[in-house]
């Protein structure tokens, strides 16, 4: 990983630079002007969050199944990144929505699902922080339930929403906007991967440090 880090970081930087250039060149959407371009960061933020959630969920299953320390590092890294990317999405979303729909928040199914999942992983971090020793397994259970309930959240909120339909709908993107979106999404995913590896590496070093402390006492 350490050897790969510099080239990967470089690639990520290049991708971000490309994305920014493409975004700047992309046509303005008819009504919203410049603010619409927040979208190019907003959607990839959610993509990043779901990638992180998937990582944390899968790792949590392993933590519960065989107590794997490696899986635990991925789980906590995934949770932290889920909260990070989710926060980015939750901030960029209302900024965009205010211009597009005139409101800061709407009970649209994707927003609510994302918000709830974000809360689950905030809870994950709270348990790990304040739960004392042995909280890795407890947090893993939270992540597992949260990931398992995600489809139900979507389904229930979807039906819940269709009772009170609003005319706002996430627009489909014309092709000229699709390319910068794709590049931006790729850049975000690369960033996610980089940050994940950094965080897992940090956790590894912490574990090594703990082992040294323990060995010192022997």
């Amino acid at each position, binding site marked *: 990983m350490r050897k790969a880090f510099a080239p990967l970081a470089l690639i990520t930087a290049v991708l971000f630079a490309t994305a920014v250039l493409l975004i700047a060149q992309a046509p303005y959407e008819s009504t919203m002007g410049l603010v619409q371009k927040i979208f190019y960061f907003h959607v990839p933020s959610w993509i990043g969050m779901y990638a992180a959630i998937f990582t944390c969920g899968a790792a949590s299953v392993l933590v519960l199944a065989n107590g794997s320390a490696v899986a635990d590092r991925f789980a906590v890294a995934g949770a932290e990144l889920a909260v990070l990317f989710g926060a980015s999405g939750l901030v960029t979303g209302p900024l965009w929505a205010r211009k597009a729909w005139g409101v800061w928040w709407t009970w649209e199914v994707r927003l609510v699902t994302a918000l709830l999942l974000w809360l689950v992983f905030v809870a994950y971090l709270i348990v790990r922080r304040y739960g004392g*020793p042995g909280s890795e397994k407890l947090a893993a259970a939270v992540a597992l339930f949260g990931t398992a309930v995600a489809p139900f959240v979507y389904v229930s909120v979807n039906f819940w929403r269709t009772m009170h339909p609003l005319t706002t709908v996430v627009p489909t993107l014309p092709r000229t906007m699709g390319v910068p979106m794709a590049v931006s999404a790729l850049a975000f995913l690369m960033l996610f991967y980089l940050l994940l590896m950094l965080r897992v590496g940090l956790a590894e070093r912490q574990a090594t440090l*703990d082992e040294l402390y323990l060995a010192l006492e*022997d």
Partner: protein
Amino acid sequence: MTASVDFDSVQILDVSRHFGRRRALSRISLTARAGEIVGLLGPNGAGKSTLLSILATLTTPSTGEVRYGDRRPRDLGASLRTCIGLLAHELFLYPELSARQNLAFFADLYGIDAGAAVPAALDRAGLGTRADDAVSEFSRGMRQRLALERALLHRPRLVLLDEPFTGLDDEAVHLVSARLRQLAADGAIVMVATHDLELAEGLATRVAFVRDGRLIADEPATPGLRARYRRAVGSA
């Protein structure tokens, strides 16, 4: 499931347990056999309770393993616990229930005939007259005696006791000690964690000194325990 899970020795093999950076147990190796009363001696925080918890399958070791008669707990399954009796500091009693109800519940849980076992246990604990009073009304000594009987109700092979003499008067200590000796004579493996050296001196057949999670010494119990303990562990 007809294979017997009974065993006549328990082997602790290089067991360590840490909680984050705190090492509770460090590479403990010890074997206890049927008929022995092993005194686990050490100051508070030495790791005695953690070790008993591991032996009772309530805690898993970070490294190393415990074997019951040369078999792994995983291979023996849940029925291993029919052979283990644990008495911890917290006593494991429901204060809202009566002594009789507490014993009956655990008798049923262990699948033994409550009608026969419970009255006998109440007698041995000396609680015959208070059997139907709520445990919350008992003194510490009464609760201790009841808790001990609860732990021994199912006649376990491996008897794990954490400070069983707390709150007992001299007569009760005498009775409990006699009881433990009888259990060992009948083939039980008895492990008693305590920091009370006088008691251990009279009771144990072997002693294991534990300090800071490490096994300092492991030897048959001979007179002069207290002096040796002081030397091995340092004055408490």
